[in-house]
């Protein structure tokens, strides 16, 4: 079974994100970038399927500018067999990414596509679902456990207040939730091996997709700063302030 796994290059989630001075965008200058945490979980799951003898080949794909090849190399170091980079510049919307991934799906014909449920920068939670629609494949989103049984894929989903188990016919799409697995560290020997693995580069034209933008970003601003608190002298003053200033009690 061939597995395609999508990885996105995002700002490292431990980095404090700052807006640019002119408010046009997030400041990405000299900021540490990393693989999107949900995509990392997707890679780990694909590699585990390979280690379990279920997957025969794991292909990591990323859409974006040239530097996202670093994240493809990370996926290769974690155990993916080869990489595909769809080179595209600018702010790419989920629909465009889904169309480009659909182009890769048509070329590679994987039995399973695993994506992160959302990226921590855009927070859109759209790409996997859009790809499902475009590729006409069943989808199991927010997966906390997956298991291939014959020509079916059982997906346990985290839904409000419980778990839901679905059975999907293959080929299918899965988007990962946090509890699906704990990704491994990239071992140094595997990082070195990853440098020699195949990485193909496509343009959107190669996949027959035109990159158009439907949304423009008007402004990016940091959250309002929290006002400093005050110390009250006694309970009476606290009650007074709650009543007359905060007006939360009467």
């Amino acid at each position, binding site marked *: 079974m061939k597995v395609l796994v999508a990885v996105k290059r995002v700002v490292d989630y431990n980095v404090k994100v700052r807006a640019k001075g002119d408010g046009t965008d997030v400041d990405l200058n000299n900021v540490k970038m990393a693989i999107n945490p949900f995509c990392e979980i997707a890679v780990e799951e694909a590699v585990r399927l390979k280690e379990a003898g279920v997957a025969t080949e794991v292909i990591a794909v990323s859409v974006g500018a040239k530097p996202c090849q670093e994240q493809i190399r990370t996926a290769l170091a974690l155990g993916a067999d080869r990489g595909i980079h769809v080179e595209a510049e600018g702010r790419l919307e989920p629909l465009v990414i889904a169309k480009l991934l659909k182009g890769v799906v048509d070329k590679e014909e994987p039995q399973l596509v695993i994506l992160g449920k959302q990226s921590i920068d855009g927070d859109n939670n759209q790409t996997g679902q859009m790809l499902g629609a475009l590729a006409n494949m069943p989808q199991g989103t927010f997966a906390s456990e997956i298991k291939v049984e014959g020509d079916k894929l059982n997906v346990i989903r985290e839904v409000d207040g419980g778990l839901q188990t679905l059975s999907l016919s293959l080929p299918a799409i899965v988007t990962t939730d946090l509890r699906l697995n704990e990704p491994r560290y*990239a071992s140094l020997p595997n990082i070195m091996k990853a440098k020699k693995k195949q990485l193909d580069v496509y343009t959107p034209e190669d996949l027959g997709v035109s990159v158009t933008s439907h949304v423009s970003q008007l402004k990016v601003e940091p959250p309002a700063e929290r006002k400093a608190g005050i110390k009250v002298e006694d309970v009476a003053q606290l009650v007074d302030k709650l009543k007359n200033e905060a007006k939360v009690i009467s």
Partner: protein
Amino acid sequence: MAAISPDILSALQACVGTERVFTDAVSFEHYGRDWTRVHTPAPLAVVLPGSAGEVQALVRLALAHKLALVPSGGRTGLSAGAVAHNGEVVVALDRLDDITDFNPVDRTVRCGAGVITAQLQAFAADQGFFYPVDFASSGSSQIGGNISTNAGGIKVIRHGMTRDWVAGLKIVTGSGELLDLNRGLVKNNAGYDLRQLVIGAEGTLGIVVEATMRLDRPPKDLAVLVLGTPDMKAVMQVLETYQGAMDLQAFEFFSELALQKVVVHQGLQRPFATPAEFYALLEFEQHSDADMEQAMALFEHCVEQGWVVDGVVSQSVAQAQSLWRLREDISETISRWTPYKNDISTTIARVPEFLAEVEAVVSASYPEFEIVWFGHIGDGNVHLNVLKPDTLPMAEFQQRCGEVSRWVFEIVQRYEGSISAEHGVGLLKKDYLHYSRSELEIQMMRQIKKVFDPQGIMNPGKIFDL
């Protein structure tokens, strides 16, 4: 425990305010001891002064009433330096917590003694700077305590100890005078540098009330490697290989048993499945891709030489933090076995031989005890922890460890090492001070103490007896 006389109580209250003097058991337990659990805290009172002037007033009062004073910071010490077990007045500096006079040109900032290390680190980061002294207890430890113990920690190999970051300090001596030492100067060869005597004096010369701390530029894009090695000798060869080619920020090691304990008790992931006897954790800056390429090339070399069996590298800040936890969580993890801790050092090159000798003595003496090794090693400092078996009573455990300590310290002496690399001497190590210091040195220390503290009221009984 003698109850406090009404005269002294009201005199203390007059110094710092009625609500800043505590004489209850809970406060004694809280303020009267550090992380050691050997002595029972039994102070006369706990006071929380709010200014250098109030500290001076307390010292004058102590002189008049022949009271001993014990300074108290974050109370995370490991040598019972901040333990009050003998009717002393505990002077807790928590309220001196102002961070002021940030100076980006001098790269300095003024801190009250009670500023918590993590607060200074966060302040520095907000200004685009970096305070590099860091250790597992930085969320509780205070600058005054760091200075008094010359705290080291995990970045010593690159940034040195607290001593290297103190540009100036103010201390209230045992005579109640306020000394303003060095005042932030970089160059100051006008006579003796008394500041350096105060750093690491464990409060025996006076109470540090304020310090001007230096800041550094922030490190750039840190990467963490964890490498598995077959033996201790290989750890040192890895250190030599990497240090010869790169500026390391940290070089730590820990044993397989330490890793097992941390993985089980903290729920962390092993770095890799390949078994190894010891692990080295390296941290370095990535100014460009060349740094990681260099690290990879060195890794290949170490594997070819048989010094390294496997290794991982952090791919994100989160992974770097998780890998650091494998080392930083050891102390907390093993604390449930109330370990007998030794914090010993020698010159870096002699560490493997030194360690082998200590290991031989320790495993022959405690065949049934679990020994956990970890440490900074890039600076010659190793932590030897003997875990108490659950069935053994504490007193018997302490006694048996105390016996073997002497043998360990004889080895330390032969290697011209230190019986306390970074934890200080306090009460716990003072009987062993002579293994690291000559009689003449200790005699001169006593004379220096007399100059600062003629009546002997400042943290008496710590480091040495008068």
